[in-house]
């Protein structure tokens, strides 16, 4: 039980590390943004896992139900998702502009051009 009780958090950490790996290893800017998004979703799952309650239901008050999941993480994450897509769009826009200026979205090529000039 002890082991199973932490399983959720471990999967979250694995997902987080996959995201981090993509951000570090990949030289492509768009792939990096996808990695950041994976990382971000894992954080969402972490928060929602914390909010889950044994025997609880969705936090919409109904007569006869006494146990609800924690609504606070839901609020935080719900807004974070929409903010996340907006910031992702901004990141992608930067990548598009970088492609416009350098003709590439690979980190090493951009670095080369910077060094050459």
């Amino acid at each position, binding site marked *: 039980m002890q082991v199973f*009780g*932490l399983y959720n958090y471990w*999967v979250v*950490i*694995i*997902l987080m590390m*996959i*995201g*981090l790996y*993509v951000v*570090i*290893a*990949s*030289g*492509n800017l*768009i*792939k990096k943004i*996808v*990695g950041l998004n*994976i990382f971000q*979703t894992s954080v*969402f799952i972490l928060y*929602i*896992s914390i909010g*889950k*309650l044994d025997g*609880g239901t*969705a*936090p*919409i*008050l109904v007569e006869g139900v006494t146990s*609800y*999941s*924690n*609504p*606070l993480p*839901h*609020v935080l*994450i*719900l*807004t974070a*998702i*929409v*903010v996340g*897509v*907006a*910031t*992702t*769009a*901004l990141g*992608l*826009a*930067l990548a*598009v*502009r970088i*492609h*416009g200026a350098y003709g*590439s*979205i*690979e980190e090493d090529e951009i670095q080369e051009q910077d060094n050459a000039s």
Partner: protein
Amino acid sequence: MLSLLTATALAVARLDQLFAAVMLFGIYSLLSAALFVVMDAVDVAFTEAAVGAGIAIILMLGALALTSHKQHPVPRSRHWMALSVVVITGAALIYGTLDMPLYADPNAPAHLHVVPRYLQQSMQEIGIPNVVTSVLASYRGYDTLGETVVIFTAAVGVIGRLGIVPEGKVGPKTGGMEHHLILRITAKLMLPVILVFALYVQFHGDFGPGGGFQAGVIFASAFILYGLVFGMESVTTVAPPVVVRSLAAIGVLIYAGVGVVSLLMGSNFLDYNLLGHEPTHGQHLGIFLVEFGVGVTVAASMISLFYAYASYQREK
């Protein structure tokens, strides 16, 4: 479910084909939305399904179309370096989880402070059944105002980077798939349903899962579908970019305006108790207006993000 998520994420990490990686990321988002339902977070699942599996993918594909489809292979040395960093960090984090309360433990610290008040008293204080909505729009109204402003700012930033859609200059060649019969008919069938559903989600958010954020995103996705199938020209006739841009600002103003009105009526900023004859009535009205403001901003920001990507001319 969790294993499926991990497998998808791994596949995304390994793929060099960016197009496939982005599509898989959509599946990953949808899976995580299903996971949120399992964990009783219906409002969150709603948002993730609409945003992650819908709009985020469209924007990523838009960015891909403007750049390149394939990434260069990762050099070996870099691969091992990244892997070692990740393994060490992961091990440290897993060591950290050993002190965490068990999953779904009712006595976890997160459930003991503030939240009991939200669950037990929000019915008397706010008077609406969906606790997520009352926390979002009333107890934590400041946070939500801030987040709405962030979305608005991000939209402004993207428009600033990619430029404004020139009036009446949207070429006939931009997008448009009218000649696909099935796509056209399906889109026509789906559009009214999506729009009505968005409105339902917007105005029923007090009682069931839903609210301004979800409704805004769903509403925007209807316009994006229209734009994708019938071309930019038709969608900009229905929703001119100027109007959409000003709506994004108007939504924020509605939200902040409600706060100012409550200030003028002699209570705190964003405290809706005095807006009606009795506190719960005031709360209802306040939350309704605030959610409306959020919905308008989110929808308008998402649509203008789409416009910005769709009409950006690649520099030669």
